[in-house]
C-alpha cells in the first residue's frame, strides 16, 4: 500500500517531467511549424508567381525568335517577288526551308484577304483558321498566340511580308508538346510542373502538354487567370498530393481564349525542408523523452527513496522500534528532514523511557514501584523463572511521628535514605521496590526460608544505625514480613499479601521479623468477617475486659488497674488484641470498641466504687480516638451517668498515637485534663521520646515500656535508663509506672529507683474482673485504703 503510494508519487513526478517536456517540445514544434509553414508557404507562392513570370518571358522570347525568323523571310526580296507573283511552289519551298531552319513545325502564307496561299500542313486554299491573328498582326505589325491546330498546341506568330507595304502574311508555329513543357520546366524551381490545357467550346478540358499528368476534372476548381496575367494561387490535390496551383493566361488569337498554362508547385517538395526539420524534431523529442524519462526516474527516486526510508522508520517508530534513519552524506532538505526525524525519534524514545521510568518508579526513592515489582516478580515466579522466590516486606514504623516531628521533607529524605540502606543490606540478586508510603518490598530469587530470614535479619540490623538528616539523628524501626514462593503463595498478589501479613504478624507478636504463618492468618476473608463479628461480640459480651493490677510501690497496694480487652470468639477462640484492634483501626470500627471500652471501664469503676474499692481504671486510647473532638464530652457524659469522679479514670495514650496528629490530640487531651481525667503516656521509650512534646502534653503519668523492664535485673544499661527516666519523670512532676515487671529483683530495683507504680506478671497477669476481685482480697497486695 505504502509502496504503491510512493510508486504513484514517483510516477506522478515522472509524468510531470514528461508532460512539461512534451509541452515545451509541442510549443517549439508549433512555433517552428508556424514560422516554417508561413515561410515555406510564402516561398512556394513566390516560386509559383516567379515561375509564372518566367513562363511569360519564355513564351515571349520564343515568339520573338519566331518573329525574327519570319522577318528574315518576309523581307527577302526573292520571297517577296515570289509572293507578289503568286509563285506557289517557290513560296512553299521557302516556307519549308524557313521552318526547318528555325525549328518551327508549321509555316503558312496568308493572302491579304485571309486565304491560305501556301501551308506546310494541308490548309492551302482554305480561309485562315486562327481567328483574328492576322488582324492583330496588321494592327501591331506582328502577333503571337497559343492556338490549337489539328488537335495540337502551337505557339504561333504572324508577321507581314512587306513590299514595302504588307502584301501577305507569314504564319509560323512551334508545336508545344511534352518535350517543350519539360524544357520550360527546366527554367523553373525544382518541384514545379507545367501543363498546357485547353478548354474547348463544349466546356471540356484537354491537357495538351504536360510535365506531370493532370486530371482535367480538377481544373474546374481552378480560378481563371486575369487576361495577360495569372490567377490567384490555390491548393489543389492530385493523386493524394497537394499542389499550389496557378493558372497562367496564354496569348490568344483574339477569338479562342480557352488556352492556359497550369503551373503546379508540389507542396511535398515545398515542404521538404520542413519535413526534414519535423523528422529532426521528432527524433529530438524521442531522444529527449528517453533522457527525461531516465533522468526524471532518477530524480524521482532520489526524492522518493529518502521519503520511503522515512516512512519505514516512522512505521518502525509506531511499532516502538526507535531506530534512527540513515541521514546520508547530502546536506539537502531530506537530510534536514531525516535529522529532525531522528531528533524527534530520540526525544520520543527518551520521553517514553522517562514516562516508563516514572510509571514504574517511585519519585521519592528512585526505586521501582509496586507495578514494576509485580511485573518482575511475575517473571521470577513464572515458567522459566527462579523457582523458589522469597518476598520480604519492610514496613517503616512510626511514620507519622517522624513526619510530624521533623516535617515532610525530612520524612522524604529519610525514606530516600532507607532505599539504599536496604539495598546495601541485601546485596546480590534481588528486586527492591517501594511498596507503599511506608513499605518497601524485596524479591529474592532462588531463595528459601532460611536465607530470607537471614536477609531479614540483616535488614533489621541495618536499621540499627540511626539516619542522620539535616543534622538530626533519627532512629527508624521497621517490621519485616516474609513470604516464600511457592510455599506460601503462587501468585504475585498472594506473595505480596502474605508478606504484608507477615509484617502484621510480627507486630502482633511484638517481633521485628515475621515469617508468614498460615495458621495465624487463615485468610483475609476471616479478618473481614472478624470485623462483622466484633460488633456482635461486643453486644454478646464475648469481648471482655481483663484487668491487670498496678502496684503502688511505696505502699505495696493496688491503686490502679489497666483494662485490657480480650476477645474470645465463639468459633475462633482467642483473637489477639493487636490483630483486631489494628483491624478495627484500619476498617473504621475502632469507634464502637472505644465506646464499649469507656462504657465498660467506667461502669466497672462504678461497681468498685460501690464495693468501696479505691481503684483507678486505666484504658488505652488509639490514635483515632485522639482525633475525635467529641471524646471529652462522651467521657464526661459517661462519668456523670455513673456518678464517677473523673480522677478515677486513667486514659493511656502512646506517643505515636499523639504524634499522628499532635495538634488535635493535644486539644483533646487538654480538655480531658481540664475535666481532671488522669492522662498517661504508654510505651514510653520506644517512640520518639521528644522532651519538648512531653513537656507540652498535659499528662500526669509516664509508663516505661516493658522492653526496658523485662530484663531490668540483669541489664545495668536498662537500670540506668529506667532510673534516669524515673528521675526525669519525677522532675517533670509525673508519676512513673513500669510495665513488664516479671521478677522480684526488678520489683525491688524499681522500688529503690523511686518508681511509683509497677505492673507485670510478677504481680499478676491480666485477669477477668472476678479473678481480680479475688486477687485483691487474697494477695499480699491489698487495697491501699489506709494509705489514702
Amino acid at each position: 500500500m505504502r509502496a504503491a503510494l510512493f510508486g504513484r508519487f514517483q510516477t506522478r513526478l515522472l509524468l510531470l517531467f514528461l508532460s512539461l517536456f512534451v509541452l515545451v517540445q509541442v510549443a517549439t514544434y508549433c512555433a517552428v511549424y508556424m514560422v516554417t509553414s508561413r515561410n515555406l508557404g510564402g516561398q512556394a507562392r513566390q516560386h509559383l508567381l516567379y515561375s509564372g513570370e518566367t513562363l511569360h518571358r519564355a513564351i515571349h522570347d520564343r515568339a520573338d525568335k519566331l518573329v525574327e525568323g519570319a522577318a528574315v523571310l518576309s523581307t527577302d526580296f526573292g520571297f517577296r517577288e515570289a509572293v507578289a507573283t503568286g509563285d506557289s511552289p517557290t513560296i512553299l519551298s521557302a516556307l519549308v526551308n524557313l521552318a526547318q531552319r528555325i525549328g518551327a513545325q508549321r509555316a503558312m502564307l496568308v493572302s491579304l484577304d485571309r486565304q491560305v496561299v501556301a501551308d506546310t500542313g494541308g490548309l492551302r486554299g482554305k480561309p485562315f483558321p486562327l481567328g483574328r491573328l492576322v488582324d492583330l498582326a496588321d494592327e501591331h505589325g506582328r502577333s503571337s498566340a497559343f492556338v490549337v491546330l489539328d488537335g495540337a498546341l502551337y505557339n504561333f506568330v504572324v508577321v507581314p511580308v512587306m513590299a514595302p507595304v504588307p502584301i501577305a502574311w507569314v504564319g509560323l508555329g512551334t508545336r508545344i508538346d511534352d518535350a517543350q513543357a519539360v524544357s520550360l520546366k527546366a527554367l523553373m524551381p525544382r518541384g514545379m510542373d507545367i501543363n498546357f490545357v485547353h478548354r474547348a467550346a463544349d466546356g471540356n478540358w484537354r491537357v495538351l502538354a504536360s510535365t506531370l499528368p493532370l486530371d482535367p476534372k480538377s481544373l474546374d476548381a481552378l480560378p481563371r487567370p486575369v487576361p495577360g496575367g495569372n490567377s490567384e494561387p490555390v491548393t489543389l490535390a492530385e493523386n493524394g498530393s497537394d499542389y499550389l496551383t496557378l493558372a497562367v493566361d496564354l496569348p490568344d488569337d483574339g477569338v479562342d481564349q480557352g488556352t492556359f498554362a497550369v503551373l503546379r508547385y508540389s507542396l511535398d517538395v515545398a515542404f521538404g525542408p520542413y519535413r526534414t526539420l519535423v523528422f529532426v524534431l521528432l527524433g529530438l523529442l524521442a531522444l529527449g523523452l528517453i533522457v527525461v524519462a531516465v533522468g526524471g526516474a532518477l530524480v524521482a527516486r532520489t526524492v522518493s527513496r529518502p521519503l520511503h526510508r522515512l516512512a519505514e522508520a516512522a512505521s518502525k517508530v509506531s511499532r516502538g522500534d526507535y531506530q534512527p534513519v540513515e541521514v546520508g552524506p547530502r546536506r539537502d532538505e531530506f537530510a534536514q528532514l531525516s535529522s529532525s526525524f531522528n531528533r524527534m525519534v530520540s526525544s520520543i524514545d527518551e520521553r517514553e523511557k522517562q514516562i516508563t521510568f516514572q510509571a514504574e518508579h517511585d519519585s521519592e526513592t528512585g526505586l521501582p514501584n509496586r507495578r514494576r515489582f509485580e511485573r518482575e516478580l511475575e517473571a521470577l515466579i513464572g515458567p522459566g523463572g527462579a523457582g523458589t522466590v522469597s518476598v520480604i516486606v519492610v514496613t517503616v514504623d512510626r511514620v507519622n511521628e517522624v513526619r510530624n516531628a521533623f516535617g515532610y521533607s525530612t520524612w522524604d529524605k529519610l525514606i530516600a535514605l532507607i532505599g539504599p540502606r536496604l539495598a546495601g543490606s541485601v546485596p546480590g540478586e534481588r528486586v527492591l521496590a517501594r511498596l507503599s508510603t511506608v513499605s518497601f518490598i524485596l524479591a529474592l530469587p532462588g531463595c528459601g526460608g532460611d536465607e530470607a530470614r537471614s536477609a531479614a535479619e540483616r535488614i533489621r540490623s541495618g536499621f540499627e544505625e540511626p539516619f542522620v538528616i539535616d543534622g538530626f539523628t533519627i532512629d527508624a524501626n521497621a517490621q519485616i514480613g516474609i513470604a516464600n514462593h511457592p510455599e506460601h503463595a503462587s501468585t504475585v498478589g498472594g506473595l505480596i499479601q502474605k508478606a504484608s501479613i507477615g509484617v502484621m504478624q510480627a507486630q502482633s507478636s511484638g517481633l521485628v521479623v515475621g515469617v508468614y504463618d498460615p495458621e495465624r492468618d487463615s485468610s483475609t476473608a476471616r479478618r473481614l468477617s472478624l470485623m462483622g463479628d466484633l460488633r456482635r461480640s461486643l453486644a454478646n459480651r464475648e469481648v471482655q475486659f481483663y484487668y491487670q493490677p498496678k502496684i503502688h510501690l511505696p505502699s505495696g497496694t493496688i491503686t490502679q488497674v489497666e483494662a485490657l480487652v480480650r476477645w474470645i470468639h465463639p468459633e475462633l477462640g482467642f483473637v489477639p488484641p493487636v490483630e483486631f484492634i489494628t483491624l478495627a483501626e484500619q476498617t473504621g470500627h475502632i469507634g464502637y470498641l472505644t465506646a464499649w471500652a469507656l462504657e465498660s471501664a467506667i461502669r466497672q469503676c462504678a461497681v468498685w466504687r460501690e464495693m468501696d474499692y479505691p481503684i483507678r481504671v486505666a484504658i488505652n486510647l488509639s490514635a483515632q480516638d485522639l482525633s475525635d473532638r467529641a471524646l471529652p464530652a462522651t467521657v464526661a457524659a459517661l462519668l456523670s451517668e455513673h456518678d464517677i469522679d473523673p480522677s478515677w479514670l486513667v486514659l493511656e495514650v502512646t506517643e505515636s498515637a499523639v504524634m499522628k496528629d499532635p495538634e488535635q490530640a493535644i486539644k483533646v487531651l487538654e480538655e480531658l485534663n481540664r475535666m481532671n481525667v488522669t492522662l498517661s503516656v504508654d510505651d514510653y521509650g520506644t517512640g520518639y521520646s521528644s522532651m519538648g512534646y512531653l513537656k507540652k502534653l498535659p499528662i500526669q503519668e509516664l509508663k516505661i515500656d516493658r522492653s526496658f523492664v523485662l530484663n531490668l535485673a540483669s541489664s545495668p544499661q536498662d537500670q540506668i535508663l529506667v532510673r534516669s527516666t524515673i528521675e526525669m519523670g519525677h522532675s517533670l512532676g509525673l508519676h512513673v509506672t513500669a510495665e513488664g515487671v516479671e521478677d522480684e529483683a526488678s520489683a525491688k530495683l524499681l522500688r529503690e529507683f523511686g518508681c511509683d507504680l509497677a505492673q507485670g506478671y510478677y504481680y499478676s497477669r491480666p485477669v477477668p474482673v472476678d479473678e481480680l476481685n479475688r486477687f485483691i482480697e487474697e494477695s499480699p497486695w491489698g487495697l491501699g485504703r489506709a494509705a489514702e
Partner: protein
Amino acid sequence: MRGLRAAPGTIHGLLPVVLLLGSVVSARAAQAVVTVTDDQGAPIEHAVVSLTSPDPALNGPPGKGAVAVMAQQDKQFVPHVLPVRVGTTVSFPNHDDFRHQVYSFSPAKTFQISLYSGDEDKREVFDKPGVVALGCNIHDTMLGYIYVLETGNFAVTGADGVAVVDGLQPGPYRINVWHPRQRAPLAGQEVTVTADAGVTASYTMSLKPPLLLGVPHP
C-alpha cells in the same frame, strides 16, 4: 469585327461634312478647297484629293506625255505621295550620293529599277489606275506612293490638311479622298462646280499607325 479602332473614323468618313459655297472667281475656272482631319481634328498630310467628272473633257489633259518626278533624297521618296493621271511618265532622280534600287510589287505597276545613282535618268510609265507602293531593296525604311488616277484634277494636303484643286471647269464631279494609311476608303462625294462658284469640303478619316519598315515590331 475588323478594325474596332477604325470604326468611329469610318463612320465619320462615310458621312463627310460638305459645305457648298457659292462659286466665286473667274468665269473660266473654279477651285475646290478640301480639308482633311483625323478623329481628333488634327490635320492629315499626304491625303490625295481628286475630282473626277463623268465628262472626260472636264478631267483635264491626258497623262500621256506628261512627266512627274518622284525623287529619292535623304533615303526618302520625295514627295511621299505622288498623284498622277493614267499614262503619265514618272522620273525617279536619285539626289543621294549612294545608290537606290526602287521597286514595286503593286498590281497597278510592278517594276524594278536596278541599282542606280543620281546621274542616271530612270523613268517608268504608269498606265493603269491604282496605288503603287514604292520601296527600295537596299533601304527598307523607304516608302513612297504613286497614286494613278483617271483625272488630272487632284491635289495633296499639306501639313495644314488642306488641298486646293485648281482649274476646275464648271460641271459635275465626284470628290475622292485617299490616304495610304487609311483604315477604309472614303465614299466619293458628288458635287457640281459652276463657273462662278468653287467647292469647299471637309473630311474626317481614321489612319493606321505608320509602318515601321524593315524592323520587326517589338
